[in-house]
């Protein structure tokens, strides 16, 4: 099970996970870090394989012409799958995965509640994939900084000034290279 407040260790290699990225590591001196506003970060950990990973995503809103107010979850599903596949490639098993979710704040008043939509998507995804959610710290109006030690599962989440959070913009719905088809 993941614990909080990782101890300060010397010679830590800190890797930043930016929006749209994911990283997996079993390195005992690796720390994965990110700052979140309305984005959500998923931390996955397999306690038996001692490997962990983090992704950082922001779902896009549908185009104005779209009748539904639902966000486009394609990119979220994609980044979740990329993270899970990389975990499995590094010795993890899906049935052993434990998850933490962070972020999903609605920082800027007047904007669409995209943080809430991100948080809801992440919860539903984990439930649908039967991945155990052991802790979440989502919602509210504050930015968060997350530091995660992937080899031990230790994680620290603290609120930070919203000026530290990246100026999040939803991923454009139509990525030029998205879904490229090649028929043989």
């Amino acid at each position, binding site marked *: 099970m993941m614990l909080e407040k990782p101890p300060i260790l010397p010679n830590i290699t800190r890797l930043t996970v930016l929006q749209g990225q994911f990283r997996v590591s079993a390195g005992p001196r690796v720390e994965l870090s990110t700052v979140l506003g309305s984005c959500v970060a998923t931390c996955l950990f397999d306690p038996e394989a001692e490997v962990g990973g983090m992704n950082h995503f922001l779902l896009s809103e549908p185009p104005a012409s779209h009748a539904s107010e639902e966000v486009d979850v394609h990119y979220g599903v994609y980044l979740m799958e990329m993270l899970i596949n990389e975990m499995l490639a590094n010795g993890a098993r899906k049935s052993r995965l434990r998850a933490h979710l962070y972020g999903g704040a609605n920082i800027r008043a007047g904007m669409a509640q995209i943080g809430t939509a991100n948080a809801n998507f992440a919860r539903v995804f984990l439930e649908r*994939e039967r991945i155990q959610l052991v802790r979440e710290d989502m919602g509210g109006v504050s930015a968060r900084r997350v530091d995660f030690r992937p080899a031990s599962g230790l994680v620290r989440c603290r609120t930070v000034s919203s000026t530290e959070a990246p100026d999040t913009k939803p991923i454009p719905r139509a990525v030029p290279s998205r879904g490229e088809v090649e028929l043989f």
Partner: protein
Amino acid sequence: MTISTRILTVDDSASMRALLNHALTSNGFEVAQADDGVAALEWLAVNEVDVVITDINMPRLDGFGLIEQVRGGTRHRDRPILVLTTESSDEKKNRARRAGATGWIVKPFDTEKLVAAVRRVAH
């Protein structure tokens, strides 16, 4: 009377299967789902299909194994099989081609491109 195209989607992610199911059924296709290659072969043993859409990374039997077994069998050996995957390496794409895949689609999928590909191979 028009008979709808029957598609089997094979993916171990329930979320991805749900996305595919929504995208394909809303475009008039009839969709069945399997969560890995073994479940797909069991379904194919007793059902008819027009197009198979399969992921690569799956437990028990992956997409490569599924394609090889379908091509090596008799019942559905000529059916089009589209690979839908997060994999981007040419090595894996070529492996799928050698195994007998009909096409290669990169996730996250675009519904219009996916539907166009299905219609093109299903005729």
